[in-house]
């Protein structure tokens, strides 16, 4: 059984029903994945914010610490949005961020960059994460979209049977 539930039982009224076996969850794989990406984003963002100098050195990205910190802020914001109840915009913002990262790393992948090898590895990692982001975005939009809900018509559901009868009688008499 879930440890959180067991811990919370301490604060629960002693005689209230207790969970003995857990069942299926409403948490979809899409949301779980978005949350995973969200935490990853926050972690990476904090590393970019506070480790900008060493990251710049590793990538041969001279005089660009503030740019890396800016990217870090972006990552943290995207991560927070991924953890929200509607992770779609957060994952979309991650994909946009991935595109920016790819462009930046591609520009750094010059022959004269002594850290070219590190840049290529980083580029490979970003491409992999971009693929995950895109899969997640597709899953979130399929599972959590409204689909063709707008095509439902409830114009026959007045809920006021007597009033409807009176209106019909009035109409008949006219």
């Amino acid at each position: 059984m879930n440890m959180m539930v067991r811990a919370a039982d301490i604060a629960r009224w002693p005689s209230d029903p207790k969970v003995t076996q857990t069942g299926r969850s409403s948490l979809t794989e899409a949301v779980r994945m978005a949350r995973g990406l969200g935490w990853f984003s926050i972690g990476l963002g904090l590393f970019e914010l506070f480790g900008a100098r060493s990251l710049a050195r590793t990538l041969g990205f001279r005089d660009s610490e503030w740019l890396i910190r800016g990217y870090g802020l972006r990552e943290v914001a995207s991560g927070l949005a991924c953890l929200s109840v509607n992770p779609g915009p957060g994952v979309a913002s991650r994909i946009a961020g991935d595109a920016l990262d790819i462009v930046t790393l591609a520009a750094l992948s010059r022959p004269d960059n002594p850290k070219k090898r590190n840049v290529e590895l980083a580029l490979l990692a970003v491409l992999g994460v971009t693929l995950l982001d895109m899969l997640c975005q597709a899953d979130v939009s399929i599972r959590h979209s409204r689909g063709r809900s707008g095509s439902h018509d409830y114009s026959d559901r007045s809920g006021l049977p007597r009033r409807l009868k009176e209106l019909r009688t009035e109409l008949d008499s006219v």
Partner: protein
Amino acid sequence: MKALVWHGKQDIRCDTVTDPEIEDPRDAIIKVTSCAICGSDLHLFHNFIPAMLPGDIMGHEMMGEVMEVGSGVNGRLKKGDRIVVPFTIICGECDQCKRGNFSVCERTNRKKDLADKVFGHSTAGLFGYTHLTGGYPGGQAEYLRVPFADRTHIKVPSHLTDEQVLFLGDILPTGWQAAAQCDIEETDTVAVWGCGPVGQMTIRSAILLGARQVVAIDRLPERLSMAEAAGAITINFEKESVIGRLEDLTDGKGPEKCIDSVGLESHVSFGQPDTLLDRAKQMMMLESDRPHVLREMIYVCRPAGIVSIPGVYGGLVDKFPMGIAMNKGLTFRMGQTHVNRWTDDLLRRIEEGEIDPSFVITHTARLEDGPHMYNVFRDKQDGCVKVVLKP
């Protein structure tokens, strides 16, 4: 027994839990025959209401058959009775209950100390809700213990179906109270924001209470079609200006009565920039609620009008236009529903065919499918307006 249990944000599970037992002479145990997912369950689902604990049983709209009663129920209930359970637990004896202010009953919140600290003074105990309101196990389960059962029940006759009477426990009296506290006159325009289940009941209540015109505001075509079926004029806020249309419908004076059936989770869109700011603040825990509807109502409401708030708010709101509200002399009325204040009258109206609340049910499912139905209801998929679960 099986029950829908809260495990965290967006994580409801159909768990096996121990059966409830009589704890107090005033208790009863019911076998739940029907229960529903409420819009305010979604606030818990999204973890916007504080003080939920993993392992809490969800649900505050339920009815069923009495299986067992305590010795202190004093003949008011007996085994086999069919009852709807109001979501507010009431003692029927305190000062507030005697005044009919049942949702602020002074005795039924068993975590009164906690509520006193947070709210200033405790309110009533509620089923399947936060520990600030007692943390009572809810009714999205096979069985339910009803505390203070001698008072906390609505007996229903056998010739009415579960679907006709189930909503006496919450959304019907909630919509009714929202309209009744507007003191509707026959010249009034009543504008209702939100066409979810409570909004639909509010619209019908305002019509039955004699409003000249009722205007329903939402963005979902299927919900607007349901509002229109009752005779409401509809505004799709994604297609037209709410303020502009309401001005047109009231000769530029604004509606006399405005009702917020949306609550703390206003729809977020680029067309309403304040909602984007609220959402960003909510994500960073700088604000708990998104009060866009309140702002719009205060702006558009006719001076000296009434603003009624049945929609649930959980904590703190920012950029609340108090100056406009004060200068326009608006009256605010709000609160959790005093369910039993209204139910005798509403049951009579159901029996006489004046209102049939079953119109709002779009989905019926097994209790085991509850976790999935939470997502269907939340994402408004398949035209979902109201889900009823059968344990």
